[in-house]
């Protein structure tokens, strides 16, 4: 048996790839559900019901999908240009803490139309800063940004932890490490009344289209793709490599930082060290599932959020651990990688 590279990839194959990958992941985690002694199909039905069965659960799923869309876009943008940003988690936290700090200290009395844009911006800038460091190290000293951006995640979380136990600590939180809150006026308005779903979802959705437009229609999109595909070819064509990658890092880090800002302004209002259940890391999975396509990111984020939210309902109904959602999402990343391989190669006997 041998593998041959496909000369042409039919469109149907490109669309089918993620669907087959998800189906395979569901089938595989079905084995685990069966092993846990629960009926597999019913379990998946419960997940669907848990995620979309009521107004509350549906809005909850979309709320959960919001930061995943943004961190997914962050990873997709970077990976397209071969900037291996594994630091989405750290950038998320930096964005969140910057938002909380500026919102509670500087803009506490400002009206919403002023403070919301400024706070979103400060979150994005904080995320940018955290990715520019590894990129600079790569450009200046050829340090692999996979390692540096990944390790900065731990640094970032510890810095956040220090801040919310120190200068930004909320004195009214009964001693819990929790940052001071941003003003109510600075909170993002609800998209659906009496739910947690906020305008951040709309922002993320719009940004997915904006990123798609930037990548497919702009000079910057063309140059960053060239820089990612072939640094030598890009340099020969006069693409300023450092500047282009710097802008890519700003976009990627900014999106991840924005995810943190949106989560603070949309849901919590303050920062704790468990603000993110791994949104930054899940963003990488989302981006891969989406084949790095910005619009695919929206769908992949919805799938991931569905699994996470729905698994709680399934867990309650069938008494099997909700960790099955983590397994399914992780498996879908693996099956996606396999599926992408088969989309690029064909088997020859």
């Amino acid at each position, binding site marked *: 048996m*041998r593998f041959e590279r496909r000369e042409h990839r039919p469109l149907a194959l490109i669309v089918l790839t993620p669907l087959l990958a998800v189906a395979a992941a569901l089938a595989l985690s079905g084995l685990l559900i069966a092993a846990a002694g629960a009926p597999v199909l019913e379990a998946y039905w419960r997940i669907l019901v848990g995620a979309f069965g009521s107004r509350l659960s549906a809005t909850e799923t979309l709320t959960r999908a919001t930061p995943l869309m943004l961190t997914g876009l962050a990873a997709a943008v970077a990976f397209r240009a071969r900037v291996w940003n594994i630091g989405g988690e750290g950038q998320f936290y930096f964005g969140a803490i910057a938002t909380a700090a500026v919102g509670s200290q500087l803009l506490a009395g400002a009206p919403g139309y002023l403070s919301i844009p400024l706070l979103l911006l400060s979150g994005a800038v904080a995320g940018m800063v955290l990715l520019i460091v590894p990129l600079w190290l790569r450009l200046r000293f050829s340090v692999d940004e996979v390692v540096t951006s990944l390790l900065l995640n731990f640094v970032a979380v510890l810095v956040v932890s220090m801040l919310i136990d120190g200068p930004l600590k909320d004195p009214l939180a009964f001693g819990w490490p929790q940052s001071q809150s941003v003003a109510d006026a600075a909170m993002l308005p609800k998209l659906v009344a009496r739910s947690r779903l906020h305008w951040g979802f709309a922002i993320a959705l719009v940004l997915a289209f904006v990123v798609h437009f930037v990548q497919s229609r702009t000079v910057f999109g*063309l*140059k960053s793709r060239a820089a990612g595909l072939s640094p030598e*070819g890009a340099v*020969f064509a*006069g693409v300023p490599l450092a500047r282009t990658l710097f802008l890519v890092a700003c976009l990627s880090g900014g999106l991840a930082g924005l995810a943190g800002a949106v989560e603070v302004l949309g849901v919590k209002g303050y920062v704790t060290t468990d603000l993110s259940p791994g949104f930054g890391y899940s963003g990488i999975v989302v981006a891969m599932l989406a084949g790095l396509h910005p619009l695919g990111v929206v769908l992949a984020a919805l799938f991931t959020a569905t699994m996470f939210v729905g698994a709680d309902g399934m867990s309650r109904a069938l008494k099997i651990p909700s960790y099955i959602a983590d397994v399914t999402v992780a498996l879908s990343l693996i099956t996606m990688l396999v599926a992408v391989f088969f989309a690029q190669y064909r088997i020859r006997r």
Partner: protein
Amino acid sequence: MTENVLEIDGVSKSFGGNKANDGISMTLARGEIVALLGENGAGKTTLMSILFGHYTPDEGRIRVAGADLPPGRPRAAIHAGIGMVHQHFSLAPNLTVLENVMTGTEKLWSLRSESGRARAKLKALAERFGLVVDPDARLGDLSVGEQQRVEILKALYNDARILILDEPTAVLTNLEAETLFSTLKEMARQGLSLIFISHKLDEVMAAADRVVVLRGGKVVAERRAAETSKAELAELMVGHRVARPVREAHERGAPVLEAASVSVRIDGVDRLKEVSFRLHAGEVLGIIGVSGNGQAALASLLSGTLVRSAGDILLYGEAIGDFSVADTVASGIGRIPEDRTREGAIGEMAVWENAVLERIDEPRFSRRGLVDRRAAIAFAETIVRDFDVRGGGARTRTRLLSGGNMQKLILGRNLAERPRILIAAQPARGLDEGAVAAVHARILEARKAGTAVLLISEDLDEVIGLADRIQAIVGGRLSPPVSADDVDARALGLMMAGAWKKEAA
């Protein structure tokens, strides 16, 4: 009667709808050198990949020494005594010669290394065939010619009786190529059988006993080398007679690009030392030399990807500072890079994207940061049409084009803009006869239209055919120019060896 060690019988292989091999049959006798001749895309490499088990044929079979070779299994091919020397070597640069040769031969779970025995065997092979190489040298430190020797030794180490060489001279200098061919003849004399793939007529005539000509995936002819001629082979290969275009005499214009004592230093190493030349409008100035003598630095400097550390450059009579790629493109300098797949074009991008990438900031291709796709695609379509780029249109992924067509695209995107200066580094390297003729014709056409062409090439025939004046580059220094009408290949050989330096001293 000589026995056939290899019989290929009716082998066919399609990719998509494209028949790369169509019922190919050929034989190879013991002690024979067969050249597999054909243009790029004729199916040579596909056939050899089938033979070596990289591809499985759709039809047909292969017998080695009378026994069927199971298809699609490289390991079986190695066991049957087939060795392959790839065009792009499959060696590890961070290992020593000995380690490279041994890779893949040792048992995974053996406790003892067999390096002692391997060293002795390697030494014996090297002596037997005159392939001298230090077994403890790190591969990355060796020249390309030496690396190829290692690749051959590796095949011999695996007890190859049939050796396949895929365009073995593509990366070699003329001298190295001659050495290689005498080695191959010695190997044949000692009973090995060899197939080498080539599209260069000279070396086929020089080295092969028999020539098998492929065209469009079929065997179109088989000749004994002694009973054929270069002209006949060229005709068989292309299907029609090709005449390389001839340079016509005409007046050159004013100097447009001058370098005075220009030096380039990279990481403490002098790549160019006090280089001077004067390039006139309407002339081709040929820079000859064995590769690795500063050609890359010269091309990069003039292409805007490298800055000089000393010296003056005058463009259109005015002294200029450091200039970027954007400056070169904007000031009418066309650039053909030495390595078209690495620098010249980005394989995963569409043809139209490669056509406009270096000009994307010009207002006709983008406005306010937005790409004008319609204009860009129209520009690419013009190039595809005017420069006869085959194998795809403006939206095709560039990777799918053959080398010759990719080169036509690169040439086209430069010449369509009627550049005043053209920097062409190895513009015809690795191309088949038809494409070479096309590239040469375009360069002469540009010269006639008044473009100043700096032609950096290792191919003496090419330089003699195209250039008005010639300078040699040796160790980063340029010789004084000589008129192409006053020199022959022998004189150029002396120049490339640095003979002018003694005169100067």
